[in-house]
């Protein structure tokens, strides 16, 4: 049922305006071209997956988009606003939010305090020095609402660092969602997860797609083929091709450089199962 809804999204996205537009991005580390003239766009309501072998420059690209790295050339635009040279925190204000490849939460704090930190960032100034934060009921309400959205409401008093890996991942996503982003950058959200946990993360991402544009960097091909409206393949810092899941699966060069014989098999094994539903 959910799947049929997704199919309909796939067919309509091509008419939408791009939310994120990346144009000719270049990043050099010494003589090494980590990002080589990368251009791509992500539309509102679309999950755009970024795949590529290890060392293809996926995380380097994500770090440039989120402002942790400065590109050497090119342009990044979100909803018509240029982000290329904005510091990371200003990009969040412009509507770009991210998750990290290595889960990045406040490990010593409770889940509630984690969420409060995220909500506070988008609810007025943090340069208030005198009023106790605990007196601000609105912040707490916002944090609880966020927890409910992600099914974390029973874990509010738990220390984040002691939670299972998959739950920490969910919290990581919750922190990113507090910004009510126009574009969500997900850097390998399924990394280190078991099949059941991956499936739940897929459902979570699927439930978010109608509210924002999502750029998904992921190694888990099952997840990518389930979620992505379009897929961009990055090889040696360069865009090899962009296309629908079907186009990517049947692209001869992609099979050669990226999927490889072994992974290609697993992808084709997956295809009949999907067609059968």
């Amino acid at each position, binding site marked *: 049922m959910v799947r049929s809804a997704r199919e309909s999204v796939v067919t309509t996205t091509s008419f939408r305006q791009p939310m994120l537009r990346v144009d000719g991005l270049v990043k050099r580390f010494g003589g090494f071209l980590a990002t080589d003239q990368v251009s791509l766009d992500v539309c509102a309501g679309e999950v755009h997956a970024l795949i590529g072998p290890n060392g293809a420059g996926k995380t380097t690209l994500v770090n440039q988009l*989120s*402002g*942790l790295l400065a590109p050497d050339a090119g342009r990044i635009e979100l909803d018509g606003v240029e982000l290329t040279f904005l*510091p*990371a*925190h200003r990009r*969040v*204000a412009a509507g770009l*939010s*991210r998750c*990290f490849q290595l889960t*990045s*939460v*406040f*490990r*010593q*704090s409770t889940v509630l*305090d984690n969420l*409060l*930190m*995220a909500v*506070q*960032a*988008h609810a007025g*100034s*943090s*340069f*208030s*020095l*005198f*009023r*106790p*934060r*605990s007196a*601000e009921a609105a912040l707490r309400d916002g944090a609880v609402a966020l927890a409910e959205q992600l099914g974390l409401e029973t874990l509010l008093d738990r220390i984040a660092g002691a939670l299972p890996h998959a739950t920490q991942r969910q919290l990581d996503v919750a*922190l*990113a969602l*507090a*910004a009510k982003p126009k574009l969500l950058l997900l850097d390998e959200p399924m990394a280190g997860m078991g099949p059941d946990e991956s499936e739940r993360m897929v459902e979570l991402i699927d439930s978010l797609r109608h509210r924002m544009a999502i750029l998904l960097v992921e190694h888990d091909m099952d997840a990518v083929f389930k979620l992505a409206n379009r897929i961009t393949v990055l090889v040696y810092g360069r865009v090899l091709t962009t296309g629908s899941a079907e186009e990517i699966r049947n692209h001869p060069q992609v099979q050669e450089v990226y999927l490889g014989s072994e992974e290609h098999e697993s992808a084709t094994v997956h295809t009949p199962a999907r067609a059968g539903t």
Partner: protein
Amino acid sequence: METKEHSSSRWLVVVVIIALAAFPWAATALGQEFYIGFVRRVLIFSLAATSLNFILGYGGMVALGHAGFVGIGAYAVVILVDAGVTSALVLWTVGMLAAALGAAAIGAISLRTRGVYFIMITLAFAQMLYYVFVSLRTYGGDDGYTLQTRPNLPFGLDGGGESALYWVVLAMVVVVLWAYSRAIDSRFGHALTGIRDNETRMSALGYPVYRLRLVAFTLAGGAAGMAGAMLATHNGYVGPGLMHWTQSATILIMVVLGGTGRRWGGAIGAAVWLLLEEAFKLGTEYWHMPLGLLLIAVALYAPRGVSAMFSSTGAKAWFAARGKAS
């Protein structure tokens, strides 16, 4: 949990303030007026150490140049007294503002670095200040500068002698520490600890990390400057030795001893350190030795500082650890 601990510690704080306010009468009655000056010094260093704890314990900024800001505050007093200003309130306010300004300038550069580089650059700036005042002949250079008369205290307290200055210092320290305590629980304080725990995430959440840090650094510098201005008044003398890097290290040790990132860690650390220094000085000329041993003991057995043992959970953990060890 936090609120319960908070309300019980609030009563303790009130009791401590009342005891400190009554102390000059008790000391006079017992004929121990010397200790009025001693406790006054403890109060001033409590302020300096607390200001460092704010950026070190809550902000995660290991600054090794805090004595530089104490020195700016002290020399602001010297320069103004030399120019004929006599009001203590004016002197202290200017001392605080001058140090805050210095901290803003030094922080603006230092806070672009991290880790060991931050330690080194704050140390370097404080040493630069030290050498500037060593070479300033007008204000005594190496020999320092003696204030000929004590500045006028506010509220017509001038006739009160040692106790009057004590009470004014106590009032100022209490006000600043109260504001500090509020700041810790505020949005700003939470943001600061967030940056300490996970800077990258804070920036990805949209926090202006650099600006938050700089404001904290400036505030801490201002409070340290006020401590320096009061210390100048207390001693009646200011020398460049005040901003030597060993002084910065002493303040840092006070914070570590008391408990980094614990609300009253700086104040408790300053009190314990100065009390022990005084006690050991009575017994031996080589008082550095037992203090050094104590530091090693703290590092080994109470790494979260003395104040961690005072909190209910901390004490339980401490005794539990002892029980396990024996």
